[in-house]
Structures are given as C-alpha cells and as structure tokens.
C-alpha cells in the first residue's frame, strides 16, 4: 500500500476535458440490485453484505496494535466538529472547556495513520502469521472457527510483509523509523547504525518467543519480499526483496547510491538527455538474498540483477519510462523497481509486478533471474502483484491505482482501471485476455482498489479470492480468462460515515479449507464458502482436501488433489453444470463411487468395483474425445480420478 495517489488521472475530471472515449458504465439496475451498495458505516457495527460465503469469526486487533484512544485510527477531535457526539467523554470535556475555540486549540491527536495497519498473511501448519506496520501477530488456527492469538511481536517498520519457511519467518521493513533492535522510539539521526531497512529473519522454533536471528540491510528497504525455494538447492532458500522507498545514504549502508538526491540538479539536459542513471544505482533492480538454512544468520545479498535492462543497448532502465499511452489512457509509473514478485519455482518462473510493467522471469537459477517477456497496459497506473493459475498457463496482474489509500471503486471510476488484468502465457509470452474489477461500486469514504489474493484450489477450475480494501472480498472464476465471473463476496460499509479512514482487506487468502482476511483496521476475519449455483458443496469439499503444509501466497506451489470420491463428484458437478455428460453416465459413476465408498468401511468384492471404475474411466475418455471446451478436461480428470480410486482399492 502506498500513501498517496499521484500522477494518476481522475477520470471524472479528465474525460470531458480530453474528449476521450467514454467508458462503459455499469447498468443502473445491476448497481441498485447489488446488496453491497448503501451499507451502513461503522467501525464495529458497519452494515454487512455477503453472498456464497460467511464470516465464521472476527478477532479484533490485539492490544499493542491499535491506539486505545482511537481504535479505528480516526483522527480526533475532528477539526470542524469539536463537540462531536462520537468523542470520548474526556474529549468532550476538553472541547466544552474551550467554547468558541477552534478545534485545533484542543491539542488534537493525529490518529495513528498507517502506524498500526494490518498487512500480509503467511501460513504454516496450524498457524497463521499476520503482518502489521507495527510488528506481527501469530494465531493458532488449529480450529479455524476458534482461532486464537498465540503471540504478539512489536517490531515497527512497515509494511511487515511476511513469509514462513520451516522455523524461519521473514519480514519486510522499509520505514526510516525502523530500528535494528525493534524499538518503538524511532531513529533520530539521518545516518545511523541503529536504523534497519531490509528483511528481518526470525527463528520461530518457539512460537511464543520468536528471536531475530538475522537482519539483512538493503538500500531502499523492503516494501515486499518473495520467498524462493529452489527445488535443486537443499542448503539455501532465497528471498527476492523489492524496495520502493528512498535510497539511503552510502554513509549509512555501503554500496547504496543513485538516490535522486545525489543527482546533480544542475546537470545540463543536453549532456544528459535521457537522465541516464548512475550505473551503480539501487534503482532498476531487486535484492536477491541467499539464506543458508543451517546458518540463517549468514543471510546476505548475493545479487542485484538488472531485470529491466534493454538487451540491445544494455541500458539498465530499459522498460516503461513513465507516462500515458495515448489519449484517454492511464498514466503508468516508470519501471524503476518491482512492487511485488510471485515465484513458481516448480515451473522455473516468476511474475514481477514492476510499477510500469508486468514481467515474466526465468528463475531456474534463482540467483540470476532472466527476463523472458514484459507487457504494458494502457489502463494500469501501478503494477502491484501477480498470481499464476495452478497449471501456469495464466497470470493475473493487479493494478493499485491510487496506492490503496484512495477510493477507486466509485461508480464513476472506469471498470478497467484499478482492476486485475488477466493474461494467458502462450509460447513463453504473455497475451492479454481480459479485466476483472470488483463489480459493486463503493463510496468516497472507502479506500478501494485491486489488492492481494490467492487461488482457491477448486479442481478443474481457476478461482481466486481477493481483497479489495474497503471494497471487501470478491471470489471470481477466471477459467475463461477473457470472461471472469464473480461467484461470492463479502463487504462491510465504510469505517467512517464522513471521512476516509484507511481500512478493509489488505489480503484475502485461502488456506486449508477457509478464507482468511487481514482487515487493516478490524482485525482477522475467517470465512467459509457456502454452496451455490456457481460452486457445489463437492467442489468446496474437494478444494478443502488439497492441503498445504505451508502457504506463502507469492511463492506458489503446485496444488495436487489426491484421488477420492469427493474429487470425482466435484468433476461430475462441473460436467452437469455445463451439460457436458449424459445423465446415464452420471448415474453409473455415482453408483460406482457409492460402492467404492462402502468398500472402505466394510468388506466387499473389491475386484468387481475396481473393474467397474476402470471400465467407466475408459468410457469417459471416449466421451472426452467427443466433448468440447472445458468438458474435455473435466471428463479426462474424472477418468483419471476413477483410475486413482481403483488403484487405491487394489
């Protein structure tokens, strides 16, 4: 999340002036029918709308992670209404004591701003780790419906992006106030050995007492980071650090240079027409950190690859130079850093969301990532994050237009701006297919734009759950990448009726049967999916059987579904939904699955059931040859699943 919108165009102002093509507005009827429109505001009592998913539990932020005098982060007292009824009794007394005085005289508190913002999530076993600008919290989710706090670690520095691997927890730190010793007092001096900006590594062998074992300093700090586990390297893991902050002085950290402040402001533009960057600049790179597993304290930066370089000229600033793409198009940021990277090591690929471009990297050697392809998009302001489909044939990129602190889902905002862009990967190249944006308009008081999400492992389909800040959570199917469809949602009204107070979902991720939402202001939310015409109970159950031991969403691991009758029934439901299978075949498969289930609990004629399943598999493969579109894949997957069950019964 960034703090301020900047070079983006505000559409409602820009359009009449530019005479640019008009964007298709959402149909009025659809807007009125959506229950997310007009939800009552409130911090703890906001109106709620949900479809096909339900809130199981909410755990408000723990003590130490909110300002007790302004839990919602709201600045008080508001300047223009000193005696607001919402004020605490003490404040009212203060305001009453100074009638006629401007509110400013009542020594207002600034509110906590971003200081206690909940951020990203990571999962391991029965534990959830929630980052915060102020540190992190560890929850037990052994029983998701009774999730409970295990430990709170205060260690300020923002954004607190987290990854977990075995006994190690990694944390991103970027702010100038952050300290090596995790202290809350900030760092007074502009150059100081006490300042820490980079990636912290904690040993979490004792979950109730995490210990910082390493702190890898970087030039721009770490806004986000990505764990990369190389399948060919058992001794090390890697972390790709992405920094977006100011470059610090070489006096504070040796080797840091290229900060704009060091550029000569008097340099003659004719000598330096392109503003060619310092060849050693900390811009135009990522930090590759190697972490030896048996000695994490020796973690260090092993490379700062020039992944934006122009292969022909060698210029390190070889990608998008900033600016718009023609009349009526969005202005995209210059590509000087990645905002976030998603690695899929089993495929040897990573997708970088890098300010002005989406890039595809070959990471088969994780120390030396090589750029394979890059794309621009005329609707994107700021390339923010990336998600691969499970089979690696699609990538969803998100655009954080407005930086996450602005309302960008109003009815007047274009449905292709601040949205997801979906690409197919064809022959190693990315091909644009379509956009997806939260379909329900939000208010001026709700910061809203595409943000962090993960796949939901429904077999046979590509489904993603995603946080949209105060736009809530949206679950959508992108199996057909050109025509994504929403299938579930959850939304609350704005935190505040009058002011935009930062809130909503930083991340919404699936983990082992549940959706977990990191709500910036309101804490941890746990959801379950409910069946609908879009998603059957069998499909939800099959997704819940694809268990992960660890989940770091920006480090994708291939989802596999063990053969089971639930899995087979999920495929059957999909084939039924598309009328892709004969009723008679459905009956036969259901009967065979029933017999297979019985065999597990009681003795029976195993050989007969095995033969029946295998014969059905052959018939389904025959059906697949006649079928079209997704039915082909679903029929084949169903056949494979029946064979898998047969193998287990043998």
């Amino acid at each position, binding site marked *: 999340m960034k703090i301020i919108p900047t070079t983006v*165009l505000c559409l409602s102002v820009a359009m009449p002036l530019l005479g640019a093509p008009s964007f298709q507005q959402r149909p009025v009827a659809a807007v009125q029918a959506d229950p997310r429109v007009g939800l009552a505001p409130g911090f703890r009592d906001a109106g709620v709308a949900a479809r096909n998913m339900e809130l199981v539990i909410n755990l408000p932020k723990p003590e130490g992670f909110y300002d007790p005098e302004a839990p919602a982060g709201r600045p008080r007292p508001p300047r223009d209404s000193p005696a607001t009824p919402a004020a605490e009794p003490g404040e009212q007394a203060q305001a009453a004591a100074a009638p006629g005085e401007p509110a400013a005289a009542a020594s207002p508190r600034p509110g906590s701003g971003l200081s206690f913002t909940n951020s990203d999530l990571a999962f391991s076993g029965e534990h959830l780790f929630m980052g915060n600008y102020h540190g992190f919290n560890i929850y037990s989710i052994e029983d998701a419906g009774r999730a409970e706090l295990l430990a709170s670690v205060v260690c300020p520095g923002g954004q607190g992006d987290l990854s977990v691997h075995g006994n190690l927890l990694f944390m991103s730190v970027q*702010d100038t106030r952050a300290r090596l010793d995790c202290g809350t007092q900030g760092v007074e001096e502009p150059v100081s050995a006490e300042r820490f900006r980079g990636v912290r590594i904690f040993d979490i062998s004792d979950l109730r007492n995490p210990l910082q074992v390493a702190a890898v300093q970087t030039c721009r700090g770490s806004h986000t980071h990505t764990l990369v586990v190389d399948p060919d390297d058992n001794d090390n893991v890697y972390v790709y650090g992405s920094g977006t902050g100011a470059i610090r002085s070489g006096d504070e950290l040796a080797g840091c240079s290229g900060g704009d402040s060091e550029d000569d402001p008097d340099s003659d533009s004719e000598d330096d027409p392109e503003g060619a960057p310092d060849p050693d600049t900390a811009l135009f790179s990522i930090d590759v950190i190697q972490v030896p597993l048996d000695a994490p304290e020796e973690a260090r930066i092993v490379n700062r690859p020039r992944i934006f370089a122009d292969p022909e000229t060698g210029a390190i600033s070889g990608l998008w130079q900033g600016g718009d793409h023609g009349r009526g198009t969005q202005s995209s940021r210059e590509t000087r850093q990645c905002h976030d990277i998603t690695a899929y090591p089993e495929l040897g690929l990573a997708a970088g969301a890098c300010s002005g471009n989406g890039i595809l990297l070959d990471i088969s050697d994780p120390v030396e990532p090589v750029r394979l392809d890059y794309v621009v998009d005329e609707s994107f302001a700021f390339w923010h994050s990336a998600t691969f489909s499970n089979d690696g044939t699609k990538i969803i990129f998100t655009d954080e237009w407005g930086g996450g602190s602005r309302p960008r889902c109003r009815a007047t905002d274009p449905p292709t701006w601040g949205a997801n862009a979906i690409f197919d990967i064809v022959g190693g190249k990315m091909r644009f297919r379509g956009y997806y944006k939260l379909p329900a308009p939000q208010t001026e008081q709700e910061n809203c734009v595409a943000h962090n999400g993960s796949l939901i492992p429904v077999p046979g389909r590509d489904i993603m759950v995603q946080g949209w800040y105060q736009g809530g959570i949206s679950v959508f199917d992108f199996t057909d990448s050109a025509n994504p469809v929403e299938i579930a949602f959850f939304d609350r009204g704005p935190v505040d009726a009058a002011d935009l107070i930062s809130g909503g979902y930083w991340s919404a991720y699936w983990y082992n049967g549940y959706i977990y939402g990191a709500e910036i202001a309101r804490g941890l939310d746990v959801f379950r999916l409910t069946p609908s015409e879009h998603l059957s109970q069998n499909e939800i159950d099959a997704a819940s059987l694809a268990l992960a031991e660890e989940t770091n969403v920006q480090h994708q691991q291939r989802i596999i579904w063990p053969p089971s009758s639930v899995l087979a029934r999920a495929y059957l439901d999909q084939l039924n939904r598309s009328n892709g299978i004969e009723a008679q075949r459905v009956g036969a498969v259901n009967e065979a699955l029933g017999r297979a289930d019985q065999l597990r609990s009681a003795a029976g004629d195993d050989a007969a059931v095995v033969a029946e399943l295998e014969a059905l598999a052959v018939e389904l493969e025959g059906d697949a040859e006649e079928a079209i579109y997704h039915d082909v894949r679903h029929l084949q997957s169903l056949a494979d699943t029946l064979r898998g069950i047969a193998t287990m019964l043998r």
Partner: protein
Amino acid sequence: MISADTAVDLSRVQHTAADVRFMQGMIGHHAQALEMTALVPTRNKREDMRMLALRIELSQQDEIKMMERWLEVRGEEVPNVQHHHEPGATLMPGMLTAEEMSRLRDATRTTFDRLFLEFMVQHHEGALIMVDELLSTAGAGQESNISAFAADVVADQRAEMDRMGAMLNAMLEEQQR
C-alpha cells in the same frame, strides 16, 4: 515482554517541526505549479502540452488535499495556497520568482512552451531538494505516512521531469530544423 502501553507509545516517532515545515512549504510549492498549469489552455493548443498540464494539475491538487489534511488532523496551521504571494514570504527551492512568473505569463506560443517546461523542471527539482533536506534533518521523516509521501514525491516528480526533459529536447530539435 513489553506492556501494551509501551507498545503503542508512538510519542518518539510523531511528526516533528521539520515535517510540518516540509508539508506547509510543499503546499505553497504545489500551489504555484497550479498557477503555472492554469496558463496553458489560453496560450497553447498543443495536445501534449495540455495533457501534461492536466496531469500535473490533478496530481498536485490531490497531494495538496492530502497535505492539508495531514496538517489539519495534527492541529498545525494549514497555509493559504496564496501565502507565497505575500510580501516577504520565503520561496521554497525551485519556485519561480515574481519576475519569472510574469515572464511566463507574458510569453506566447513556442516561447511559452519552452519557458513552461524549463520552469516546471526547475520547480520539480526544488521538490527533490526539499525532500533531501527533510531526510537529512535529525528526527524528521519518521512517521510512516510522511516517509512514504516523501518517497512518492521523489518518484513522481522525477518521472515528470524526465518526460518534460524529453519534450523540451524534441521541441529544440523541431525549432532547429
């Protein structure tokens, strides 16, 4: 172990006088950019100049709003956007003097374009100097909000400067032909 009271004590990382001066100064600085962009429509028909002016206008307006709000909720004085016109007001780095401003106002056609770009580059460079000064002041830029804002100012002004530099070069080449 630390107590919750200690954990939420942000008193040492609250905004400083230098942060307030930075925000107050930057409002005047941005306000002058708006005065400059307001001249463009009456002096120019070039599409790229109008787009540039519009973009600068929108981004600076948005940031002024954010800065005013930042000061307001901290109970600090929100300067009038006209403040820099008052006699004796200190100009922030890069800001145009009254003479420079009237030169721009009086210019037309290609002279205006060239002056506008040159002055705006100078103006934006001033913002970078202001950020540099802020970050080299003890105790300043500690709050998450202001640290992120300063980084954004640098990124955006820098990108706009690069774009204006390129436009200026193209303009000079055109004139030489």
